[in-house]
């Protein structure tokens, strides 16, 4: 159930199968991203893969001394490119791997193009998704739906991605979906269809309790992506944006050249791995420790090396030192930038109000706070619009709803038309009308007591009060209490036991906050393994 390893295993297998010798990895745009998420360049270099080429690049040289490993999505264009490639092979031998199911006719046309017998392998390796964390995957699809319904192309891509995930994890799940969402239902049906069609592929060793695929729709919880996050990974994504583990820092004032774009990968950055789920304050102290640790090592290195022993120590420590210096400068830059943005955008205050909007039911104070912040010149128009969106979502039906007034305030503040329109769009997208379950008011007695208790205890951290709705859903699911009338099974059979392996897929994208939730759930509930996925990974910018 580790998606990073699942993909990594595939890639390793490809490389191993091709035997010794210099290799080139031939990929398309999407598989490049897929591979880059699980393998670093230096790692892959050690496996004798020296070149990375795009199948669609025209400027490739003939290098007959290289072996080509092709990892491609089975799209029409890719097959065409490959046919051209095989007609005039540029490399000595080809190992072809498709990331998904390929049709027989495509195989045939490829075979007919291979007149020089350069193809040594044709396989399907189902690494057709972006593995972000061991329990989090994404398909990097933006705007998967048009209105309430699927964009057909994206639906098929999502289906492919999801089935590939199931195959790579060797799971043949039961499917549950969110009844209130048409999109969820469509996707569930499509996945089911593929499973039925490719039944022989999905014949895995039966586990005691069958795995479960739960398909949700973002519109059920439009709040979560609108909140500012305070854990490291989520913050970085929120404020800087993570794209395939890469962070673009080029907008940071005074950034040095080699830090324009940095890679944050838990796979090979220990500090990041240890801190990605910690909140901002903890990271502050951790980075201080990191710095101190570094300082301790540093002066020795930068001094003149007097004796041979010094030099020896230096030489022995050099790579660690270098690595550490890279890590330190990277994280210091990132955290520095984060804190700059936080203070510049007055995010602490904004976030406090956001949390209040999301978690409490005091309309008048909420309204007051929103209004106050709207007057604050430091609050960006984007943040302002977000506050209003949250307000709109929460107090949509409130008797003294003053949304129009707030929108006027927004206009006065000079917030652009685009953002103002978003408010109504969000309400339409995630408003009460479409929500299957109630986000804000506690449903049953247990939840009420819980909230009451929470109120008594006092809030530990005002910035992280909000628990994504997903937490509740999953909690119920694990305890076997998730209502079937809201999340029906696809097909006649239902799960009697408590589920153990759960794959959650959120149409419209997951968030890092939810990733954190899943992470904690994984850690706190024994015997349960949850993998979260989404069409993309969100931040508030959508």
């Amino acid at each position, binding site marked *: 159930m580790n*998606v990073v390893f699942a993909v990594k295993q595939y890639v390793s297998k490809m490389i191993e199968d091709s035997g010794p010798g210099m290799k080139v990895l031939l990929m398309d745009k999407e598989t490049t991203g897929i591979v880059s998420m699980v393998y670093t360049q230096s790692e892959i270099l050690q496996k004798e893969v020296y070149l990375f080429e795009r199948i669609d690049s025209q400027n490739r040289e003939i290098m007959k001394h290289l072996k080509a490993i092709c990892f491609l999505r089975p799209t029409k264009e890719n097959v065409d490119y490959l046919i051209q490639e095989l007609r005039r092979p540029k490399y*000595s031998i080809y190992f072809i791997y498709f990331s998904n199911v390929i049709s027989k006719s495509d195989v045939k046309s490829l075979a007919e193009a291979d007149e020089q017998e350069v193809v040594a392998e044709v396989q399907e390796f189902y690494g057709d998704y972006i593995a972000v964390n061991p329990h989090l995957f994404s398909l990097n699809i933006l705007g998967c739906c048009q209105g309430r319904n699927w964009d057909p192309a994206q639906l098929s891509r999502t289906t492919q991605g999801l089935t590939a995930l199931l195959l790579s994890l060797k799971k043949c799940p039961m499917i549950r979906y969110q009844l209130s969402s048409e999109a969820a239902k469509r996707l569930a049906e499509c996945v089911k269809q593929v499973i039925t069609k490719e039944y022989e592929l999905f014949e895995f060793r039966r586990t005691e309790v069958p795995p479960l695929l739960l398909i949700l729709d973002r519109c059920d919880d439009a709040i979560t992506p609108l909140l500012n996050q305070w854990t490291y990974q989520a913050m970085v994504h929120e404020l800087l944006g993570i794209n395939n583990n890469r962070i673009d820092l080029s907008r940071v004032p005074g950034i040095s050249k080699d830090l324009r774009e940095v890679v944050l990968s838990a796979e090979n950055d220990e500090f990041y791995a240890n801190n990605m789920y910690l909140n901002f304050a903890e990271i502050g102290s951790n980075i201080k420790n990191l710095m101190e640790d570094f300082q301790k090592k540093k002066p020795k290195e930068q001094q003149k090396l007097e004796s041979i022993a010094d030099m020896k120590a230096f030489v022995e420590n050099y790579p660690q030192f270098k690595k550490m210096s890279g890590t330190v400068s990277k994280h210091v830059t990132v955290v520095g930038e984060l804190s700059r943005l936080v203070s510049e955008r007055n995010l602490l205050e904004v976030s406090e109000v956001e949390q209040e909007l999301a978690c409490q039911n005091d309309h008048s104070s909420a309204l007051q706070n929103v209004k106050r912040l709207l007057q604050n010149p430091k609050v960006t128009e984007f943040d302002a619009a977000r506050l209003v969106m949250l307000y709109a979502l929460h107090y949509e039906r409130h008797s003294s709803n003053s949304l129009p007034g707030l929108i006027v305030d927004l206009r006065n503040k000079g917030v652009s038309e685009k953002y103002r329109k978003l408010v109504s769009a969000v309400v339409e997208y995630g408003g009460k009308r479409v929500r299957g379950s109630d986000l804000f008011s506690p449903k049953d007695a247990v939840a009420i007591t819980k909230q009451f208790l929470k109120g008594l205890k006092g809030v530990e951290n005002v910035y992280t009060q909000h628990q994504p709705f997903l937490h509740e859903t999953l909690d119920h699911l694990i305890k076997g209490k998730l209502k079937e009338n809201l999340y029906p099974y696809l097909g006649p059979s239902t799960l009697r036991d408590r589920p153990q392996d759960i794959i959650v897929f959120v149409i419209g994208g997951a968030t890092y906050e939810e990733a954190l939730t899943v992470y904690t759930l994984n850690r706190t509930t024994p015997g349960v393994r949850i993998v979260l996925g989404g069409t993309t990974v969100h931040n508030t910018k959508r």
Partner: protein
Amino acid sequence: MASLDEPGEVREGFLCPLCLKDLQSFYQLQSHYEEEHSGEDRDVRGQIKSLMQKAKKAKNKLLKREGDDRADSGAQGYESFSYGGVDPYMWEPQELGAVRSHLSDFKKHRAARIDHYVVEVNKLIIRLEKLTAFDRMNTESAKIRAIEKSVVPWVNDQDVPFCPDCGNKFSIRNRRHHCRLCGSIMCKKCMELISLPFANKLTSASKDSLSTHTSPSQSPNSVHGSRRGSISSISSVSSVLDEKDDDRIRCCTHCKDTLLKREQQIDEKEHTPTIVRLYEKLRLCMEKVDQKAPEYIKMAASLNAGETTYSLEHASDLRLEVQKVYELIDALSKKILTLGLNQDPPPHPNTLRLQRMIRCSATLFVQEKLLGLMSLPTKEQFEELKKKRKQDLERKRTMERQAALESQRRLEERQSGLVSRATNGEVAPLRRGPGPLRKAEGWLPLSGGQGQSEDPDPLLQQIHNITSFIRQAKAAGRADEVRTLQENLRQLQDEYDQQQTEKAIELSRRQAEEEELQREQLQMLREREWERERVRAAPLHSRTRSLDFQREPGRGLRTHLAHALDLGPSPAQSGTAPKTPSPSPAQAWSGPPALDQEGPPQSTVSQPPLNPFEEEDRPSPPGEGAVSPAAAEAAPLPKEYNPFEEEEEEEPEAGNPFTGPDGLAPNPFEEEEARPCLRPASPPAPGNPFEEPAGTNPFEVDSDSGPEVEERIEEELLLQQIDNIKAYIFDAKQCGRLDEVEVLTENLRELKCTLAKQKGGPD
């Protein structure tokens, strides 16, 4: 259930999650669980399962360290605050997901296609062969045409009014041409020509696919053909009707394409680019490193722990070897990097990229592995380590004994045990003393002292202990015990005092010894000077002399007189050397032993002068025992030598003052970089050192240039360091960190300075 593992209570090991009973192993835990708690909540089972996953993971960690390093480091961070569930990073290793192969399907389709293709190519080649089988130059054109037509039936002219390739109408001016290989028709523009050499190449290659012709010298023949073609076309302008081609065969584009492809295949089969060859070498080296490095690391680790399982020399040999391979890797990858850089048409950017990447990965490889290559202790350090280990062991033993003694609580017994231990302790160093001394190469007189220096430790410790006992007993008010203890203490102190005085005596003795040693060395130096002069006069002779000397060491005065006579050409010189004792060879020969006897009376200590010549890895006690009587009795009992066979090796040392210089004088330090310190591992065959002048060197170096040995090791280290730093500079430059480059360059300069100094110094 998770509450049991609450972070506040950190317990490790295989605890049963239900009863917190500590079980020794995972399997025991499992069975324990099955016996005791089966039928309880499934959640617990889940937890056990998670434990199992952890255990599995841990096992995997141990088994395949390399691949999972990152995951490990990630996991370690979390383990500290894990509570109950399983961190996603700790999930059991993901097995390879589902796969599906289309290969058989693919092959089926391809086979059909390939058959077709192969048949076609073969057909063309057979026809080509037929067309070139006869002598075209000397055959009439009509006849040629007849033969050509017999190979393949020509398409009827009337059937083809337009050129099938370009669509032009055939006319008088635009004549029809037939492909000689398939018989089809095209116009002159679309016609291709095959030159005879090209045809020959194809046919011969297919005839003997083992490819007897090796050079692709014929590959530019298409150019050649076309040039010839243009000449001939000028000449044939006059006779358009006469379509005689001397050395070319007409064919259509399609056939030509097929043949060209075929040619390309043939070429590729034979051709291996330089980069491939270099790369193969590189990989070979890497494999070698992968194979050798762990072996070396094992050795070095063992040596650094002061163990004697492996010999230092062997290890440094291996180290040198591995380092050489690294250098080779470096050189090879550099070569790959610069491959074709100054060719006229610069290589494709991708080629350059490939070369860069290979270089990069080689650098990574070297960096990663070379730094794992821990350094060896120098000889001195090794001795120290060995000693330390020995001491550690001894201390441990005494500690154990002490613990046992104390547990007895019987004071009398303890006292007697103490005495015995104390005497033991005294005897041991005496017995032990020479051992390390021998190995510590006499020029280090301090080391002998060190052997004893920690010996009083247990005694002092004991005294200390007893003092504390007394205090305790006093506190407890047990007067009689206090008394006995005090008695005991006094005894101990006496013992200690005695030892101290002994040590003082020993120390002074040692000082005397040292002086003596210095004297001896002075003498040796003098002798050497004298010898060098003499050697200059008759190097060859002196060697034979020393050889003789070697062979018959015990013959005493008579032989030596003979030697003196033997000296022939240089008797005058030897005689005139005023201060050396060498005028009387016998005295010179027995010089060191004689001096020994003059030294302090302790016979065991008298060995140091000989010790320098001892072989490192031959601490054989009989040898040592043999030396001392030999030293003492050399002169009076010459025949005694026979029993000591191994003496032969030590003899050259005895003769060293004579033999050494002739080896030393010509090549003191330049040639022999690392050798002296590596060689002794395998003591050369007795006769060997004297066959080649350099052979005596090891002894020479061992005897008097101990510091140099050390320096040489350092020198090697320096060299390696320089290499490393160079690599880093390169690395840093690539990454554009100028400040680092600066610091590194400075270091490098310094290192080089040191090296130069060292090199220059000894000369």
